């Protein structure tokens, strides 16, 4: 199978102080697929996402996005790349001082010379996709958490990007809204043939949306494969993560020194 590789990370390493967050991460993501990155908190999922969108630079290793090596792109080229990606933030990250309509239309107003009437139509279309048409004039503070996330999603896709990144799209939402968001991600991928990269640890959503799944552990890819393969994985760590078992090979406690010793100090 030789599909176009749209994102390629090669042996990416990143340290914050003494803690190695990414520890030789290698990954390929193909055009048009829905790729889920899962893993426990602090395993480097979000950090990796921030590397792909160019917000962080790796200490070593290389990242290619849409065929460009992020280490040697100029600022202008990076801006062009950024216009081809959309990012859906965990907290939605809507601009508080703007209405929903202004939030969604911001990239259009800034990056295109489209007439205001055209912009309004595009905004209506995108809001219709996420089921929030008619909410243009509300402020973000008047929306519920799920609605904010959907507005954030509309804003992420307003420039018709090639890749959309989702940072924990269903975290903190009730099961129904989470299901709605999952369905939206699937719809967008299928209808607009967008490549979706989803970072999550919500197991239900992983297996309902993913074409392929990568499991990260301690800054490395533990296992990567089709959704079904991961589900049937023989790796006890992956199984522990899927089932959510507190006992297993993945240690919950992150302290290195001995408990008794520290108590008696």
């Amino acid at each position: 199978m030789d599909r176009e590789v749209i994102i390629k990370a090669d042996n990416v390493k990143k340290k914050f102080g003494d803690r190695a967050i990414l520890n030789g991460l290698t990954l390929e993501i193909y055009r048009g697929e829905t790729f889920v990155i899962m893993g426990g908190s602090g395993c480097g999922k979000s950090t990796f996402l921030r590397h792909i969108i160019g917000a962080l630079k790796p200490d070593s290793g290389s990242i290619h996005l849409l065929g460009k090596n992020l280490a040697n792109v100029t600022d202008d080229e990076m801006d062009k790349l950024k216009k081809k990606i959309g990012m859906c933030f965990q907290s939605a990250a809507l601009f508080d001082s703007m209405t929903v309509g202004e939030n969604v239309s911001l990239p259009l107003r800034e990056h295109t010379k489209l007439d205001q009437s055209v912009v309004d139509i595009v905004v209506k279309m995108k809001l219709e996709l996420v089921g929030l048409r008619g909410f243009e004039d509300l402020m973000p503070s008047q929306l519920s958490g799920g609605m904010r996330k959907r507005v954030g999603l509309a804003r992420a896709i307003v420039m018709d990007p090639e890749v959309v990144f989702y940072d924990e799209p269903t975290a903190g939402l009730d099961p129904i809204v989470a299901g709605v968001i999952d369905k939206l991600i699937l719809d967008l991928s299928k209808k607009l043939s967008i490549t979706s990269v989803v970072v999550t640890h919500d197991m239900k959503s992983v297996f309902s949306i993913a074409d392929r799944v990568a499991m990260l552990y301690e800054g490395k890819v533990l296992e990567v494969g089709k959704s079904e393969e991961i589900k049937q994985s023989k790796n006890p760590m992956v199984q522990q993560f899927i089932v959510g078992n507190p006992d297993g090979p993945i240690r919950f406690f992150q302290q290195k020194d001995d408990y008794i010793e520290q108590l008696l100090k």
Partner: protein
Amino acid sequence: MNFIENIGKILIDTSRYAVEILALFFETLYWLFIGPFKGKFAKRQGIFSQMVFTGVDSIVIAFFVSFFTGIVIAMQSAYQLSRFGADIFVAPMVAVSIARELGPVLTSLVVAGRIGAAIAAELGTMKVTEQIEALDTMALNPIRFLVVPRFLALLIMLPCLVMFSDLMGILGGFLVGVFNLGLNPYRYITFSFEFMAWKDVWTGLVKSAVFAVIIAMVGCYMGLNTKGGAEGVGKSTTLSVVTSFILIILFDAILTGIFYFIKT
């Protein structure tokens, strides 16, 4: 050893702040002067709304501060001057000290407390709620989009506010002089402007422009470098006001020194 370590740490932190604030300043200048030639203007609408917030909305507080300062200076100097029968010199005393020193400094301190804190809190909240990052992933440079309008608004509006403050301070002194000391209003005004040189006014305005840069840069820097939730926002707001205050007083001393030695 601990004491020396602490001093070293403070020195290193301070110089790091200084370097980073300067870097932010130069980047702001880049987006202000070079960015437009690349077709990347700052938002005009954003600048105007910031100007209203910075300037127009600060008029009341600027009025109170400088009006009463004018009254106080007039009374305090009359207390001394009347002993020599030199009541009329209250007029130039008030006019010159307000225009040279108290107008710019007090107004800037008030604006630093009002606007600098607001900038730091707003940008800080945007930072901790990922809004800054969202701007960046939309290929919208946060400095062009957020810092430049605030910088320009302060740079334009603070000197305007200072001019207004100067007038209000002189008015305060005038009221004391006329109604309390019984001076002739016409003589009060001619005396004020006879002794007040053009230099007194423009040095005050130059000072206020420098203070505007300080307030904008410190507020934006502290806001954009906020870490860690609500507590972080509180911290950077406090830090921005404290740092602005110190820098305003420091640069006031430096500029006064410079103007003192420039004899024009």
